[in-house]
């Protein structure tokens, strides 16, 4: 466990990734709790709109700025729930020439669609928020709970998403025209834009063109920021923790995450496997004998429960090993399946205390 505590005591950023439904939010919150217990100033950020973090911390709702959560620890624990739209608005305001310029972009319908709903934008804004929290120098550790998207780890790609948008042909088309009034010089391009209008409706195209035009002048600021935030994710003081559960479907997802990390020259420093089952001290053969022997006794139900549990925990054990094999260098940790979900700080402290290294066979 020393390695785990060292990791939490030492890093500046810990990114928890993994699919939905495996206790990722709870794990992220418990890491921040462990850090606060070690005397650090930790903030945990969630991107999940389902209010799981507020629920786990037992608070009434979280906003886009860190909120302190009281608890019996020498350090500080705070939590923040990313508001994608609000964060994007802040970025626009920082990069705009003046207030009027910022408002023109913010009120554009295309921008509203992009800012609020595009999944890549959510990831980009998460990285932006992470940078903001890191730069404030208020926090020793920022723990990030990434979105439960299927094609996850777009988080890592996030800074590039915006560059892609800026490299977009429509953007180039409209901004290459320095006249101020929108005019498409290129006849072929004009055809494309008008045909596009037939597909999505002319209003969508108009909105997009207006957006790209008003975006002009902010571009460099955005590009520079994207580079800086990319660097933040790949620095040594940033660790990735893969959160999983021992189920067949999450194993596939976990494999995918590991591949994504590897292709970015990164690897998880730890794998936390939640919801592991207890392992009885007898094997399946003995359980079958017992079930036969205890048939129609007061222990019949217990013997069936034992056989069932052995079958489930054997699969469970197999999955834990397969998960461990995905990143042999990573610290492997398990948390037992708990009787109920976590709704308050004591529950979270209890969860954090149950994180353990699995017993060897």
């Amino acid at each position, binding site marked *: 466990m020393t390695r785990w505590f060292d990791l939490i005591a030492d890093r500046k950023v810990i990114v928890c990734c993994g*699919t*939905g*439904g*495996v206790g990722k939010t709870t794990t992220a919150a418990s890491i921040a709790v462990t850090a606060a217990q070690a005397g650090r100033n930790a903030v945990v950020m969630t991107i999940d709109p389902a209010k*799981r973090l507020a629920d786990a911390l037992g608070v009434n709702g979280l906003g886009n700025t860190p909120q302190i959560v009281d608890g019996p620890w020498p350090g500080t624990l705070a939590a923040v729930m990313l508001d994608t739209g609000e964060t994007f608005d802040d970025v626009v305001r920082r990069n705009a020439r003046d207030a009027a310029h910022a408002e023109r972009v913010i009120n554009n319908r*295309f921008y509203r*669609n*992009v800012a*609020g*709903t*595009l999944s890549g934008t959510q990831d980009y804004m998460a990285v932006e928020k992470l940078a903001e929290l890191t730069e404030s120098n208020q926090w020793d550790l920022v723990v990030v709970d990434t*979105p*439960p*998207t*299927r*094609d996850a780890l777009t988080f890592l790609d996030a800074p590039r998403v915006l560059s*892609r948008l800026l490299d*977009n*042909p*429509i953007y180039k088309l409209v901004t290459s025209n320095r006249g101020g009034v929108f005019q498409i010089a290129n006849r072929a391009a004009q055809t*494309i834009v008008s*045909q*596009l209008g*037939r*597909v*999505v*409706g*002319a*209003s*969508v*195209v108009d909105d*997009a063109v207006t957006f790209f035009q008003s975006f002009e002048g902010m571009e460099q600021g955005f590009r520079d920021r994207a580079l800086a935030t990319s660097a933040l994710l790949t620095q040594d003081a940033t660790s990735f923790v893969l959160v999983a559960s021992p189920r*067949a*479907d*999450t194993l596939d*997802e976990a494999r995918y995450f590991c591949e994504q990390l590897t292709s970015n020259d990164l690897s998880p420093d730890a794998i936390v496997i939640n919801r592991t089952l*207890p392992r*009885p*001290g*007898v094997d399946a053969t*003995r*359980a079958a004998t*017992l079930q036969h*022997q*205890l048939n129609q*006794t*007061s222990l*019949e*139900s*217990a*013997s*069936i*429960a*034992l056989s*069932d*549990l052995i079958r*489930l925990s054997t699969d469970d054990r197999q999955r834990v090993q397969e998960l461990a094999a995905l990143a042999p260098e990573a610290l492997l940790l398990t948390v037992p399946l708990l*009787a*109920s*979900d976590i709704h308050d700080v004591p529950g979270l402290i209890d969860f954090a205390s149950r994180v353990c290294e699995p017993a060897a066979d």
Partner: protein
Amino acid sequence: MDPKHFFSSSNVLIVAGKGGVGKSTVAATIATAASQTGLSVLLVEVSGRSATAPMFGAQAQGYDEAVVIDEADHDDQRGRVSLRSITPDDALTEWLNSHGFGRLVTRLSSVGILDVIATATPGIRDLLVLGRIKALEQEGVADLIVVDAPAAGHAVGFLRSPVGVRDAARSGVLNRQANEILELMGDPKRCQVVLVTIAEETPINELIETSFAIEDELGVRLGPVVVNALLDELDGLSPTSPSDLPPAADGLEPADLDALRLAATFRHERQQLQASQLTRLEAQLPLDQLHLPMVFSPVIGTTERELLAQHLNQQITERVANDPEDHQGTTP
């Protein structure tokens, strides 16, 4: 209700639920159960990854339809089950082609403008998948089309996509398409949504939220809720039961007793949790519940799927109220 009657009550059945609840298993089970009643079924996957093909002992499926249960191979009155995958990119290309934008497709993709369309109109990817499903429904390709909805985040996103597109593209062919899909989804004879959950706190909370959102916002008919992976209720378990018995009496070793005690305590706790969650679901969501048992097998193959399907049909017979026309909705 008679299962055949149940499966014939709508043309499209969308299976939705968050990740980790066994949604794809339930989709394959529903397709099989309908086939067991003699109906022909098309099972559509939309995630781009073929989760259900292995359950039919088949290879991963592409955009073209593949028969995974052939009625000729069965003595009983089976309906054919086909499987196909519809991904947003396939659907977009096909849709542009079929709407006279064929020559545009190559050019648009080569300059990356398809991305702009997708960016400008949120939900368009999901919408086009739904649009393709609507087209299949109108062609009458099968008695029932079962859709394994995407698992990402909340199930509502996929179902809400036509509303998003209708509001973003206020004119043009896409707007028309969105309206046609909303028409399909709002017609209880053409479409119903079956939500899948497990009997645990967070999944049940999300299920309840999702149900009300789907019905209030979209006016979609909600079918029964499938509660998956339930443990059998074993009687006479209490956390301390094994210790009540003198070890020597039955020739049990201390290790046996420890294991029995551990298993009994664990099972007792899970059963109590399960029962309380089912009661809570029943109290908070007035929809019929169909219960499927936990499968004690690391993989779901043909045997497990067929058994689950028989189980499901039995549950429909016992638990679904008879008159679908009287569907009152979840609003109390």
